[in-house]
């Protein structure tokens, strides 16, 4: 029992230690910023994975929730002089509310239609922001947002050390919440709906209610990330809704492996560093990012997490051990195994 608890906790302790040690290793302003960006993308990618990966909902509005969070906190601080902390909390609320709107079509739609509706929704947000230029600054965005502070500490000081810490806490928290959800009855019901909706429904799982919850929780996390991003850069613009974020996040999620937390975090780090290296190359940055998505889809649809699982199984097999355990934070191992669609088909006449 103690060993099981240890096995469960160990990766998290290691994760926390790594997060704590990293800023000591990267002290320059630039490398610190790259690190912070990786944290931000990590939060966003893991929050998206709740719907896209774990629940298998074709949610393509996550960027919109991120943008709504960014804009609502920026507007609140800009207009009312509210504390950024309160604005960040309200950003979660407004993102969750916008998720309620985006979820409306999901009530009656399935599968790829949801992808269509949520994609249209996220594109719409750009028009809304541009149209309400009195409030949002239109295409100029909102500039000059104050930095976050905690007591006497300004988060910008010491090469944004405060922002780093907040980002690390957010990433740790969103990963922990993701794991808790994936292990809970709620998370298992999402996976059951993903794998076989009819079967799950026949066992009394309510699709709309469960998927709605996943949608809103993921959106709230994205809203916080948006708010964080706004204060970090002290500006917001319609870029936050843009295609750039969409491809970057998709490349992280698919490179890492859908519905795997460690995979997604590693994917976020790899892509962030790569993007930083390519930052002077203009359009090449997006060429590389989108090409990575395609190459992963072609060559290794399970992403790094899939490669890791394969390697783990090989190693375990060589050591003559049972190799099905996987890493403790590996949600697909905890989940009901994904049956191939054909297995549900009756063998002969239906």
């Amino acid at each position, binding site marked *: 029992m103690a060993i099981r608890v240890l096995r469960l906790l160990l990766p998290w302790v290691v994760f926390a230690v790594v997060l704590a040690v990293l800023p000591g290793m990267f002290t320059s302003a630039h490398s610190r910023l790259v690190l912070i960006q990786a944290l931000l993308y990590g939060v966003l990618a893991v929050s998206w994975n709740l719907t896209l990966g774990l629940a*298998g909902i074709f949610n393509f509005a996550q960027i919109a929730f991120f943008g709504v969070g960014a804009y609502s906190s920026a507007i609140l601080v800009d207009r009312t002089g509210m504390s950024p902390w309160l604005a960040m909390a309200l950003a979660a609320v407004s993102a969750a509310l916008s998720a309620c709107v985006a979820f409306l*079509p999901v009530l009656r739609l399935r599968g790829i239609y949801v992808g*269509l509706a949520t994609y249209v929704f996220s594109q719409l947000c750009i028009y809304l922001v541009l149209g309400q230029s009195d409030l949002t600054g239109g295409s100029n965005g909102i500039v000059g947002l104050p930095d976050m502070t905690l007591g006497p500490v300004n988060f910008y000081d010491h090469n944004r050390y405060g922002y780093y810490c907040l980002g690390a806490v957010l990433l740790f928290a969103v990963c922990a919440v993701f794991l808790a959800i994936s292990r809970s009855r709620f998370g298992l019901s999402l996976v059951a709906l993903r794998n076989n909706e009819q079967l799950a429904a026949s066992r009394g799982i309510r699709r709309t209610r469960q998927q709605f919850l996943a949608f809103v929780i993921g959106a709230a996390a994205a809203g916080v990330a948006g708010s964080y991003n706004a204060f970090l850069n002290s500006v917001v613009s319609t870029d936050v809704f843009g295609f*750039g974020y969409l491809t970057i996040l998709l490349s992280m999620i698919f490179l890492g492996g859908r519905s795997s937390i460690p995979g997604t975090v590693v994917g976020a780090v790899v892509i962030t560093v790569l993007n930083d290296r390519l930052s002077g190359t203009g359009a090449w940055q*997006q*060429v590389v990012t989108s*090409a990575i998505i*395609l190459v992963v*889809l072609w060559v290794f649809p399970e992403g790094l997490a899939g490669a890791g699982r394969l390697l783990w199984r090989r190693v375990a097999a060589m050591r003559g051990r049972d190799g099905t355990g996987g890493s403790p934070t590996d949600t697909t191992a905890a989940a009901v195994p*994904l049956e191939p669609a054909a297995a549900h088909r009756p063998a002969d006449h239906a």
Partner: protein
Amino acid sequence: MDAFAAILLSGLVLGSLYGLMASGLSLMWSTLGVFNFGHGVLLALGAYFAWTFTEQLDLPVALAAVLAVVVLAVVGVVYEIALVRPFIRRENGAMLVMVATLAVTALVQSVIQLLWGPQLRRVPQFTSASVSLSGATVSGNQLVALVAAPVLVGALFLVLKRSPIGIAVRALEQNRDHARLVGIRPAAVYVFVVVIACVLAAFAGVLLAGIQFMTPTMGDDPLLRAFVVLAFGGTASLGGTLAGAYLIGLLEAATTYFFGLSWSPVLLFLAMIVVLLLRPEGLIRQRTA
């Protein structure tokens, strides 16, 4: 200028462009079961090739348009082989195709930026002639768009109804296993469908590039509207899709006139949500012939 005539004209022109986009999307959806999120960038690609043929090679617009359409037909073959075929039969294939087509959109938009540069450009209009109709002036390309959309979609309808490949497309759509038992090769049908969709998108691109300035993202707005059209017109028939396209075009023109440019997309989306909630199969339900 008479407001009603202006709304009508602008709505019908928009509807024509959306109709060209949406018929390709609708055909791909009903046959392959995927939405092509790369349709907008295919439109842009068609426009940029047409620009190259007119400006660099000094060809007349009509010939450049034909060449651009041919190039996009070839692109369509590659598109199917690279982005649809590897994923379509996999589990969760619809999502993989969606992600792949989104990724290729970002990829091609950046490549366009790298190859053609950021300058604002236009393709010359098909004809400099313009017609005045009850106070509204119809430019050459608008006229071509008005005529071309129903003609091309009508031609597609006839091809689907009468030609052997058209019958194969419909057969595969209606009963995949039986279609394979009568010797239909799904892969060949898929290539055909994607090529048709590319050709229509390319043509819409050439028309649009004569009406507004070209950018790598010029296809995003028409694509978005085409998606709304699918929600309205359903995907069961080309007639329904075309009717939906005109409806959306007119709705957009009217809402833009009365509520302004920024509210029009919002109202369109609200209308889409309402339609999807009430009738997920599309507002205009009809069976294919």
